[in-house]
Structure formats: C-alpha cells, structure tokens
C-alpha cells in the first residue's frame, strides 16, 4: 500500500545523506519495526512516511498515488495516524474530547459519535471515569493508550509510531505493542513502529534495521 522509490534525505550536506535510494513496500494487515542506532535517521524517515516533511530525493506513493500530488496536509488528515513518544494529546482536554477532536479534524466516519469514542477508549482499558478527566491526570501508559485509541477512532489506513513505548515500563510496553498488533491484524491497517528495543521489534511481523544509510530486513 505504501511504497518508497529511491527515497533519500539529508539535512545540510547533500554528500552526507542520512539514507539514500531506499526502496521499501509496506502492506496493510502487517506491522513493521524499524530498528537502528541513535542518530541514524529513523525519526527522519518516519517524518517522511507520515507526511510531516518532504523527501530530498525520490518519492513516496500511497496506493500508487504520489504523496506530493495528494498534498501533505490532506494526506495527514485522511491517510496517516501518528503516535509520538510523548506530547500526543491535547493537555487541556479529557481523553474523550481528544478523540472527538481528532475524529472531527480527520473527518472520520464516526466523527461526533461520543459513544463510539467511549467504546474505543474502553477497549483500551480507559473506562468512562478516566475518559472524562483531564488527560494530565492519567499515567504515562494510560496516556499512550489514549493516543492509540485515537488512531483506532480515526479512519487512516497507515499508523506510524515513533518510540511509542519509550516512556513505558515493561507491562505497559507489552500491552501497547499488543494493541498495535491488533490494529494491524484485526483492523487491517499498516503499522510502522520505530523502536530501539529488540523485544518490541520482535513482536512485529517484519523488522528493518537502518544502518549505513540503508534499510536491511532482518530474518
């Protein structure tokens, strides 16, 4: 569903790219983990996939349509859902309003459906009491689950996450990764997770390592 063709990126110096000539394909119903040392450019790659930045070389295609043709804002609104390591949520809202806001902005099928939002949160262990408090009164694990619930409530086919478990303990990490797997398998979405934890990567269907400006698939 998502394809990169000769993708390359550099910050200042063209002769020192972070990665170049990347040709990868990501499919729906699958989960992908991207591993790599710090500073190799994992987050940068993800920002291209997520439509937060434009590639310096090559193209990204969604179902054979060029991203730059779709328009990055439209792409972000309708086709991709992002989970960051932190600061995912609107701090002045409840989890419920966070979901409703995201659903409204992305023009999701269930936009405005409060019960649907509450049900989605409940599926991730956020009961109605938690769902109507301010998000700042939730634990880190709970907040990350709200962020995952948000990607579920929106209709985007592609879910990208940058170190979603970076701030979580072991139990919460397991739980969150299990949820991502569910999103990929049960909801038939394409999930791409950047992580530096091999345990997390191991739970995903496919693993890639970014090394020496290239992506290599691990066995």
């Amino acid at each position, binding site marked *: 569903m998502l394809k990169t063709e000769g993708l390359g990126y550099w910050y200042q110096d063209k002769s020192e790219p972070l990665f170049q000539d990347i040709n990868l394909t990501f499919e729906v119903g699958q989960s992908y983990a991207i591993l790599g040392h710090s500073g190799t450019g994992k987050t940068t790659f993800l920002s291209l996939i997520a439509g937060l930045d434009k590639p310096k070389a090559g193209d990204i295609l969604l179902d054979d349509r060029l991203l730059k043709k779709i328009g990055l804002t439209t792409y972000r609104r309708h086709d991709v859902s992002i989970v960051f390591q932190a*600061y995912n949520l609107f701090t002045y809202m409840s989890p419920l309003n966070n979901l409703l806001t995201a659903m409204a902005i992305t023009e999701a099928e269930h936009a405005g459906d409060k019960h649907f939002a509450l049900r989605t949160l409940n599926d991730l262990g956020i009961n109605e009491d938690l769902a109507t408090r301010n998000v700042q009164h939730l634990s880190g694990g709970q907040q990350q689950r709200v962020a995952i619930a948000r990607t579920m409530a929106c209709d985007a086919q592609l879910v990208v996450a940058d170190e979603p478990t970076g701030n979580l303990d072991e139990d919460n990490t397991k739980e969150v990764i299990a949820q991502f797997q569910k999103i990929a398998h049960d909801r038939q979405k394409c999930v791409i997770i950047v992580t530096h934890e091999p345990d997390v990567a191991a739970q995903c269907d496919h693993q890639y390592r970014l090394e020496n400006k290239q992506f290599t698939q691990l066995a």
Partner: protein
Amino acid sequence: MNFFKRAWLNVWAKKGRSVLLILVSSAILMFVLAGLLIRSAAVKATDQAKADVGATVTLSANRQAAFKKMQSSSSSTSKSSRPKMTLTPVKLSDATKISQLSNVKSTNVTSSTTVNAKSYDVVSTSTGMGSSNGGGPGGMKSSASTGDTQIDGVTATSLTTAFSNSQSKITKGRGITAADKNTNNVVIEKDLASQNDLTVGDTITVKETAGDKAKVKLKIVGIYKASSTSTSASPMSADPANTMYTSYTLANTFKGSKYANTADSVTFNISNPAKVSSVKKAGKQLINTSKYALSTDDASYQTVKASMANVKSFANKIVWLVAIAGTIILALIVILMIRERRFEIGVLLSLGEARWKIMAQFFTEMLMVIVVAVAIAGAGGKFVGDQLGSQLVSQSTTTQTTATSSTGQPGGSGQPGGTRGGAGGPGSTNATTSAKAADTDLDISVSAVDLAELGGFGLAITFLSIMIASGGILRLEPKKVLIS
C-alpha cells in the same frame, strides 16, 4: 466548527491564564475607553458650546469711515469750529433684511440714550459730588446733554449679553420683551428700586435730555440685579444701578423724532457659531458699507472650541497610543503563548488541521477574553475617564482663561454700550468667555456607541496581535514535534 470548541475548552481549562489575559486586556481597553470617552465628551461639549455660547454679528455705524470723513472735512473747511463726527444711526429696514438670512436665530435692536431723573433719586457713588443732592430732582443737571439715567433700549433684555450670560438677573417682575415695543415699560435696577422704595407696577417720571425736554412717565414692569463685576462699567453714568432697560422704541422717542426706526446697533444671534463669517459676508451685500459696519463676535465659541480641540486631540493621542501599545503587548503575549503550545500545534498539524484554523482557534480564544475585558473596561473606563476628563478640563480652561482675561478686560462688563457707538466690539464680551468655558464640564458617560467603538478597537487589537504572532504558527514545522 471544531476550532471554536477547542478554543472554548482551552479558555475554560486554563482558567488562571485566561483570567490573567482578561486583566491585561481590560487594563489596555480601559485606557482606550477613557480616551474614547474624553473624545466623545469633547465633541459633545463643542456641540453644546455651539448652542449655548452662541455668537453674534453686530450691525452698527461705520466708525472708521465716519472718522475719516470728519478728518477730511475738518481740513478742507476753513471754519475754526470743532469738526463733528457724525455717526449714521442704523436703519431698522437694513436690520430686518439681515435678520432674514439663514442661521440668524434672533435679533436684538439696541438704542441707548440718557434721561434725567424726575420723580426719583439716582443712585450716586459715595465718592465725588456727595450724596446729599438727593433733594433736587435732577434740576441742575438737566441742562447738560448727558442725563443722570442711562436708558438702554433693547428688543428684549434676554437677548442682551449681560442677561444671557447671567451677569444681570431679573429679580422681580419680568424683563423687556418684544411685546414691550411702543410702550413706556421699564426695568430698573434693584438698588435704585430699594433706594426710592419702588416696586413692580409703580410709575416713575423722567425728563428728556434732547429736543423739548419733555417729561415722560414710565411704568416699572421688572427689577433686575446688575452683577457686581459690572461696577466699573461706564465712565459716563455714575453707577450701574442707574441703568434702565426699555424697549428700543422708547429710547428712540427720547432721542427725538428723526431717530424713529433706527438703532445704535443691531445684534444678530447666530444659531450655529461656525456660520458667523458666512452670515457676515451675506449681510455685507445688504448694507451700505461706507456708512455701516458688520462686526462679529464668536470669541466665546472660539475659546470653547479651541479648548475642546485640545482635549480632543489629546484624547485621540491616548486612544491611538494605547491601542498600538496594547496591540504590541498582546502580540508578545500571544507569541509566548504559541511557543508554549508548540506541541499542541504540532499534534494539530499532524492530524492534518489547516494552519488557518489553528490561527482561528487562537483568535477565538483571544476574542472570548476580549469580550469579557470589554465588559470590565466598560465598567471601569468611566471611572478613569472621569478622573482624566476633569483633570484635562481644569487644565485647558485655566490656560484659556488667562489668555482671554488679558485681552478681554478692557471691554469690561459686556453691557450693551449704546451711546458709546460700535457696541459689542470684539473686546466687550471676552470677559464672559472664561466663565462660559469653565462651565463646559466634560459630560462623561458610557454610551452604547462608545462600547461598540471599544469593541471595534478590541477586535482590531486582537486581530492584529494574532496576525503579528501568526508567523510562529505558520513557520512551525510539524516535524519539530517529533525531533525535540
């Protein structure tokens, strides 16, 4: 609109910050309102001054032309007799024509003369000839061409400067009105009345100084009190208490038959002081300017206008300075706010929200704050405006008063000085100006228009500050949220 809901949730959730913003905005808007209030009060006061203070155009003999004529005749004639300056009395037919011009509100005909007391004693100043000559009813003075009683013939006392300025006041009975034309009704001064035990309804007798020196009976219809400031008034009649008001027709009768339908001067009250010069121009077309002159007096109006123009321009400066400073302050606050909220903006952008809607959210948040601030400023602005307004008026009128009193003093009381020729010359009423200007208190009240204007300013300040700060939103790269 989702950004509207977000704005509301944000303002509500961050109450402390919202209250702080409301306080800052209120303070800014309060000063804007104070400026607006003073300005609108100054405009109101100027309009009021137009109606109250009024201005006049006076038709009188052309003294300058007469003086020149006298000089030339004295040099050309071989006679050694003293040359006489002849002032042509104003023709009432000319006055009627001018009175029909637009903007002429009312017309006051003035004709003055003197008579001698017959049935009463004049009030004599304690100095000089002594007060004991009360017994002789004016006998020894009667030969002189100047009598002991000043007769001010008018159309109506209420139209004279002395009465319209409340320097003189009717204390009993009534003043002379247009209905007193061709009657022998008279209004006498309080001191004269009490000295001679006269009251309204009594009759007094005077003796003419001109012609057959006939005795004439006058009926007292009113008693007035001359202001103490007019004491120094005239060098001719000994005491202002000896001035009587009659209809100008009676004064003309005293002067002699050839004075019928004439006047010393005719004063036209102009409804809109700003139109004084146009009335004068139009009036000049109607008269023989070699014999008559039209003089204007809108000094009172000009003084109030100048004083209010000062206040107005000061208020304008306050409004704009505060508005600009307020915009800058709010813009800085919004810039800081946007910085502090860059993660939120990043999440919005990553969800695919349009940048203009993010700006709209910030604008809506500020708008909610401003609406409350306008209400608070509306309540508080009156207080600030009151303080500032009274301060300003007292300052500007004291400067104006010192300015006018230095020029206005020689004219003195502003009594219609009929026999003294060109009555109502620019100097004569200036002294009243300061009194009027001081009366012009700034009436400060918050009207719906003021609030609407304040709301407009609030809106503009909010809009501009968001625009200035919007660079922060427009430049923010959503990727920065990922890589922090």
